[in-house]
């Protein structure tokens, strides 16, 4: 049974073979290598989805700004003198040059150096040299920086380049409850720490989305971390692959391509004082989940939150075989310095671009990329793990299939 219409070259095999009854889920390696599909991704996914753009803690004061590419578009995220955070295209309304060429800072105005048009920190046009040369049709109030549709969800700033897309809350679907469960744990709020990791890989962006929610590969790919760093530096027992999933919850599809995996906390003892408080506040089931389990949340299309490492990670395509990865640790504001240090170490040592796991993940993703462009036309990738199990495990591939089914629906429709 093929649920997707064949697309691409005439007579080319279908992109997907999805047969839940038989436990078959396969897709063509073209999903990673076909430039035509990347073009569709840009138009149908990145131009229409809610994309994580930043965090309000990155621009805490009026006048604070940062510049960043989101969905491949250069943007300014600025907190105006009125305290509101806005997102703008970083492009002058006169002839389109970049108005802000600094990574971050604090400013009253953004000045384009081409003809010195200037904008206030709320995006309004407030200076045009030789203003008298323009006629009555030139209305400064209509010539502010192009503003991007933005929603702030509990500090997370999402941007969307389409007016037609549903509101963020509807877009998040059931992922919203998991985001709440994650954010509720920081009772005194949280903030992004300085030192953003900006790196890249010569591989398709979707490989990172899969890899970050892939538990199956942990022991095989990350042996160096599990069997050296964990016991010899952290002094902890590495998880036993045979028993690691005892008591694990099944991965869940959360609608609109979002998914979550939940697994028992790798180490550490739950804070029993918190348990009482949280059981009263959130109910027993939710409190248990928050204290004893940890989650990796995939927000379609390209945002990940890895709770154990406390990191928000995004991935954008530059080309079919080139992706930019950015990662920001989100730390609780009320943090003991020693615990803060441990949290940072847990992030850096595993997921940092110079850590003991990410370079190896990038290695494997780049190997896949090299192969997928040269395989026979009827070659396929298998993504059926755990498909027929009543209670799939985090090490199964439910979460990847959730992503792929949404991707397929958007790309093939």
């Amino acid at each position: 049974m093929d649920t997707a219409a064949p697309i691409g070259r005439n007579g080319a095999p279908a992109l997907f073979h999805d047969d839940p009854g038989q436990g078959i889920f396969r897709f063509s390696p073209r999903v990673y290598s076909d430039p035509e599909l990347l073009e569709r991704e840009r138009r149908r996914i990145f131009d229409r989805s809610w994309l994580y753009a930043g965090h309000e803690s990155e621009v805490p004061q009026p006048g604070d700004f940062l510049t960043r590419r989101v969905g491949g578009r250069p943007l300014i995220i600025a907190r105006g003198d009125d305290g509101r955070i806005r997102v703008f295209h970083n492009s002058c309304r006169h002839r389109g040059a970049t108005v802000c060429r600094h990574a971050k800072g604090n400013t009253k105005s953004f000045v384009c150096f081409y003809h010195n048009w200037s904008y206030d920190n709320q995006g309004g046009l407030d200076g045009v040299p030789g203003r008298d040369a323009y006629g009555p049709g030139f209305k400064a109030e209509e010539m502010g920086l192009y503003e991007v549709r933005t929603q702030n969800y509990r500090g997370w700033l999402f941007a969307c380049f389409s007016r037609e897309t549903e509101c963020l809350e509807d877009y998040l679907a059931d992922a919203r409850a998991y985001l709440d469960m994650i954010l509720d744990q920081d009772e005194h709020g949280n903030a992004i720490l300085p030192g953003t990791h900006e790196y890249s890989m010569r591989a398709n962006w979707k490989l990172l989305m899969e890899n970050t929610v892939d538990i199956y590969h942990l022991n095989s790919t990350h042996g160096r971390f599990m069997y050296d760093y964990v016991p010899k530096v952290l002094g902890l027992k590495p998880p036993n692959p045979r028993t690691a999933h005892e008591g694990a919850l099944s991965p869940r599809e959360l609608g609109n391509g979002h998914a979550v995996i939940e697994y028992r906390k790798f180490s550490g003892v739950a804070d029993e004082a918190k348990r009482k408080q949280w059981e009263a506040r959130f109910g027993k089931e939710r409190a248990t989940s928050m204290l004893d389990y940890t989650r990796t949340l995939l927000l379609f299309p390209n945002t990940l939150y890895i709770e154990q490492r406390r990191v928000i990670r995004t991935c954008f395509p530059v080309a079919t075989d080139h992706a930019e990865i950015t990662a920001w640790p989100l730390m609780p504001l009320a943090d003991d310095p020693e615990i803060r240090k441990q949290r940072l170490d847990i992030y850096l040592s595993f997921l940092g671009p110079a850590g003991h796991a990410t370079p190896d993940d990038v290695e494997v993703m780049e190997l896949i990329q090299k192969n997928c462009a040269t395989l026979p036309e009827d070659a396929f990738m298998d993504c059926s793990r755990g498909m027929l199990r009543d209670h799939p495990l985090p090490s199964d591939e439910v979460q990847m299939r959730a992503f792929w089914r949404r991707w397929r629906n958007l790309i093939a429709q």
Partner: protein
Amino acid sequence: MSPAIADRELRAEIEQFLYEEAELLDNWRLDEWVELFTEDAISHVPALDDPDRDPAQSVFLVADDLARIRSRARQLLGDTAWAENPRSQTRRLITNIRITSVDGIAIRATANFLVQRCRMERISTFVGQYQYKLVRQEASFKIAERKAILAQDTLRSQGTMSIIL
């Protein structure tokens, strides 16, 4: 001996030490390299946007103490550091060596580096400044602090960093 000559001799000693360290790294003699550090040593690669922040309060690329320096070396010498298996070839050029302070047996020195890495037909280059705190020990030195400060704004061009800088 005049101060100028003493300075020149110390600089020559440090230069020799740094060249020997570079040779250990370039030749994957990492088990010997870890022996260059003091017990309380640190080895850092700070964030690219501001090298002067505190690794306990901000994100670094590498923030290793001795246990972590040893673990990194062991992992790279083992066979499951896939990003370096097969191993890359590196060659480092070390220049502009300057002593910035001498305090008893503790010497602070800086040097510029260019590390070229080649692996599987791809070449990447890392350029920056080393900041060392060395302590005199017998005829040589031990490294108490080693900071490799990269002169670039992101890691996008190299991808990741799987070698020791």
